[in-house]
């Protein structure tokens, strides 16, 4: 699974950093860095982080698997 955070929307509440610290880290006071690729053992934590985000900035989903050519 992959995540992307809409950092236009993010206001640095950092709920995700508390809930899934292996995936989300603060860089300074409110800059957010994260790992786009979510390991399986972090999935549940990331789901909680996405649900808890006050501005609903976290999208979790499958990557495009290119078919055809």
């Amino acid at each position, binding site marked *: 699974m992959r995540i*992307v955070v809409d950092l236009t929307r993010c206001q640095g509440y950092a709920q995700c950093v508390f809930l899934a610290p292996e995936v989300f880290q603060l860089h*300074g006071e409110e*800059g957010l860095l994260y790992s786009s690729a979510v390991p399986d053992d972090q999935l549940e934590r990331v789901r909680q982080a996405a649900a808890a985000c006050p501005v609903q900035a976290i999208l979790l*989903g499958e990557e*495009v698997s290119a078919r055809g050519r």
Partner: protein
Amino acid sequence: MAGDRRDGRIVIVGASLAGLRAAEALREEGFTGSLTVVGDEPYPPYDRPPLSKQVLLGHVAADTTGLPMRRDPDADWRLGVRATGLDPVDKRVVLAEGESLPYDRLLVATGTRARPWPNPREAALDGVFTLRTRDDAAGLAERLAAGPQRVLVIGGGFTGSEIASACRERGLEVTVTERGPAPLVGALGGTLSKLAAAMHRNNGVDLRCGVTVTALRGDGNGRLTGADLSDGSRVEADVCVAALGAVRNVEWLAEAGLAAGPRGLACDAGCRAFDMYGIVTDDVFVAGDVSRFPHPLFEYQLLSLEHWGNAVAQAEVAAHNMVSAGPLRRPHLALPTFWSTQFGLNIKAVGVPTLSDHVVIAQGSLEERRVVMVYGYRGRVTAAVTVDMAKSLPYYQHLIETAAPFPPVPGAADRPIAAEIPVPSDVPDPKGLSHGPTVALTGHLPDRRLTVVQPTS
């Protein structure tokens, strides 16, 4: 014919953020026809902002930033295939191999590419990079991990500043050259650029402003050894990143008769492309960095943006309008917004800071490194920039959307405006900068300098 806009053949050229979000939105809007997405990179859509941050810091690998889907758009992905031409009469996209894809409606989302170092022989030296793609980031991250003696970053825009920040965080020696008076001055104006320069220097960057790189030097094995600067000095460096801004990917439209040029493909507020005569098409749509669109809050000037959020918002509007009949169409009116994380500071902006004559510090202070800067133009609020005060930004967004008077009255602040006196916004002419603007007003205002496109410098 009008009733079956949810059927037929749609081709999207561009398989990055805008292309993916448009493809998803088309299905959400009920499009049931065939959907083909063409992308010149061999990878599924991936996120670019982490490439200059997490990836260069070594936190994540460049090949792990694939974008999640909101839903499977059930598209035929033609990846690693370049579109080379467009026949708008026969309604076909020509691909590099000579094949052509027929369409009923087309979305152009070909974005931008990094402006290369202008001297091809110097650009080919081992150790010289640009940063735009996943492959660029993988190569640069590998080189940074190997511990170079010094990294030279040419251009003090957002990308150049983020690269310098990542290098310093990795403990690498960095020199940044910027033709203008300070980093970020082209995007944020004079006052915040002084903070940016201080952040560079406080973090140990060797910042050289008001200079240009006149030549890159290599050894007998074709390896970069350094650069000559316009002030006569020389920088020894084994890695160089040319962060000179972006070039719109419009060359494939050269023979298409559309209003495509160095600033992008012009379209109406409904994302419909104009042809070369300024007549709006109804089957060619545009979204993302390659577009150039009018915005009522900014004097209906055509805006060229290189913003993540604009790619998403415009792709959704374009998709809606591609499957909707005339009166049901929507305008793309989202305010420009962007962010940058560098030297531990979170910089966010809303509106168009370059459309300004004065600025005022509304909250915080430069000394605290926590500040809200509000930009005004002819007595109305046109933009706001926060440094580590992102929670305040929506308030100022509201002021921009309602054309509130400048300087603003205290509102989000629990005290009077921090600095009562507006000072000139001091946005320089983009011609004097190393990097291109990430926001460009490309219309005409008699009292404003016009953005002049220089294909090479």
